[in-house]
């Protein structure tokens, strides 16, 4: 089962079963692989029927694909989780403090902890947010922190998602599917529940309602529409929270508020959980060609008439150029050393770093500062000579556009393959809710798994799959 030097979360480095997997393994060994294979198919059928699909960009509009689901859970012990969640809590606290500072006095720049050009030259900085104090003081109501693991104790932050992190519906549906298919597993293993997420999300959004809200705040989810790749998730969350799923065309400014067109007339919204990017949010204030947004919503926002979750302009906190400063940012705002480490990162905007990166291109992963979804990145060790040469050119032309990181030996978790258990690389995205009452991380998250042997790319848009993620009770 073991790979040379790579940490497997079930079998360690030396093939000895690790404690969190003990009960699962006992169950697994007693199972008939044929039955499991049938279950795997059943799971897929369930997903297809439920419509848990994502749309693939750049293809026929109606193409909907399933994200492959693997039935072997990824299991994390209570102690491991405790440390993780403390680290996440600290990081998210820092992110919110950073956002407040950046859109107000910018003390961190004045203190010389980050260079001014990091903000001034950054397209993710939204001038229209300057001076805005969002209701409840919360900028990032929902955060996804992407983590990778390289050893028993080593969790590293790969990326912060402070804009509109997606994937939480898979965390919930994966658990639901496992509960339906293998109820017996959950009586042997005491797994911390994730199912409260929608309720917690609603509560946390309501707690951030603006002062203009009277009575029970009205919450709605704003989606770009059924052709968006994450439409399923938008509908799922609205459904689970019991709130309306709206599109820009359902909304307009009425009596100084953002209101939705209902069968009984316009009804004001207090908190809008938007899954539309900043640029498309308000054609009056941002991209005038956007048909997805609500003209004037930023005006209502600045006037204090609505809460937008996440706040516009939070992208400045999860930009890959900012990422490399996160350890400083955490320390600056919390006064504590960071609990979670970053992956070592070379900023190609710095000449020395660039020289190093160019010299070691075949060993590094190079990413676009503003990219996401695994697009536009170079994985040195698996790249062809031609790829490397092409990337070298791009790097030299616009060094500020890239950062580089070492290729990590990511941990593996077994998947249930045709030939039995087979180790595959994974990452983890826990979901964090922020409200004036505090920060809470749902125990678990979305485990993405590279289905191809040896592959490090876990993105669903590039053939990755998902697993249920268990955090065991103490």
């Amino acid at each position, binding site marked *: 089962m073991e790979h040379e030097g790579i940490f497997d979360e079930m079998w360690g480095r030396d093939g000895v079963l690790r404690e969190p997997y003990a009960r699962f393994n006992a169950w697994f060994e007693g199972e008939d692989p044929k039955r499991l294979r049938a279950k795997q198919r059943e799971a897929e059928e369930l997903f297809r029927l439920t419509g848990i699909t994502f749309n693939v960009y750049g293809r026929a509009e109606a193409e909907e694909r399933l994200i492959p689901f693997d039935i072997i859970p990824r299991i994390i012990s209570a102690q491991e989780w405790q440390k993780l969640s403390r680290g996440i809590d600290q990081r998210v606290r820092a992110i919110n403090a950073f956002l407040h500072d950046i859109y107000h006095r910018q003390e961190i720049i004045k203190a010389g902890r980050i260079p001014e050009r990091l903000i001034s030259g950054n397209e993710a900085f939204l001038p229209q947010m300057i001076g805005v104090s969002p209701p409840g003081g919360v900028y990032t109501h929902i955060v996804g922190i992407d983590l990778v693991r390289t050893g028993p104790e080593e969790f590293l932050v790969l990326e912060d998602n402070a804009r509109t992190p997606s994937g939480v519906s898979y965390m919930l549906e994966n658990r639901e599917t496992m509960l339906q298919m293998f109820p017996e597993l959950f009586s042997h293993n005491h797994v911390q529940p994730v199912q409260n997420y929608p309720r917690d999300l609603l509560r946390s959004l309501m707690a951030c309602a603006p002062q203009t809200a009277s009575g029970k705040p009205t919450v709605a989810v704003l989606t770009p529409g059924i052709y968006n790749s994450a439409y399923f998730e938008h509908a799922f969350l609205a459904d689970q929270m019991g709130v309306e799923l709206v599109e820009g065309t359902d909304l307009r400014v009425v009596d100084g508020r953002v209101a939705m067109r209902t069968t009984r007339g316009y009804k004001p919204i207090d908190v809008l959980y938007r899954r539309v990017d900043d640029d498309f949010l308000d054609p009056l*204030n941002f991209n005038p060609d956007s048909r997805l947004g609500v*003209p004037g919503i930023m005006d209502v926002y600045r006037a204090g008439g609505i809460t937008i979750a996440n706040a516009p302009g939070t992208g400045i906190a999860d930009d890959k150029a900012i990422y490399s400063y996160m350890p400083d940012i955490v320390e600056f705002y919390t006064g504590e050393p960071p609990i979670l480490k970053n992956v070592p990162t070379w900023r190609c905007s710095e000449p020395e770093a660039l020289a190093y990166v160019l010299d070691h291109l075949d060993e590094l992963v190079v990413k676009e500062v503003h990219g996401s979804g695994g697009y536009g990145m170079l994985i040195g060790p698996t790249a062809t000579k031609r790829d490397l040469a092409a990337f070298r050119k791009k790097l030299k032309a616009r060094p500020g556009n890239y950062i580089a990181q070492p290729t990590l030996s990511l941990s593996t978790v077994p998947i249930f393959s045709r030939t039995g258990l087979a180790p595959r690389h994974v990452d983890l995205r826990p979901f964090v809710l922020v409200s004036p009452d505090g920060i809470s991380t749902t125990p678990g998250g979305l485990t993405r798994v590279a289905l191809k042997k040896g592959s490090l790319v876990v993105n669903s848009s590039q053939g990755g799959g998902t697993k249920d993620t268990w955090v065991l009770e103490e």
Partner: protein
Amino acid sequence: MRLKIRHRTRYVFDHPVSYGLQQIRKTPKSTHQQVVYDWTTRVAGGRKELSFEDHHNNIVELLSFERDATELVVTSAGEVELSNTNGVVGRHIGPAPLWLYRQVSARTRPGPAVRALTRAAEGPSDIERLHALMKLVSGAVAYEVGTSHSDWGAEEALTQARGVCQDHAHVFIACAREMGFPSRYVSGYLMLDDRVEQDAMHAWAEAHVDGLGWIGFDPSNGISPDERYVRVATGLDYADAAPVIGMRVGGTGEALDVEIEVAQQ
């Protein structure tokens, strides 16, 4: 000097507006060189939805059209007491950080013409260089009403060598930023000595000089603003400070009529 200002904008549409919004920046604020009295905005054919202060510290009002309106009339009026500060506006208040005004914006993107003009602006001190720049701008861009386009940037205006106050301001701002000065666009009212009725609002520029703070420059008139200038809105360029930004559904066949009166009391 005390000025009485009345600014009335009337839109008439061939086809009714089924839905529309206007974001207006027409309300001056009291500062140390101007005190605003009894300023009101009245709307007919629409309503005031809300108001707020934007990131340039401007007062912004959001108006909506009445359903199926074929006419919208917005009237701003009030009085402003002014004092002459020789163009000095004072220290930077914010909320935007000063560095924001070093940023290149769409209409102030420098090209070869802007850079050439910048190189020509010389002087022994910051202030003198900026004054030299102001003269260069008025010399390089002839004031001609109706020949420039409102979406022109600084580079276009310089290349075409003509324009109005908006273009002068953009050229000045683009050059001042090239020279390293934070700089911004100002829209406002200017009292003219020979008449009360005016065709349009005025625009000029401000640059920030260490030690002195913001200083106004009006390249169209070749002077720093005095007690005849009423500051209304500021921004990186016209887009941020425009008196009206709007969107509407329907309302084709627009006819616009503007009346501005600026009179000394």
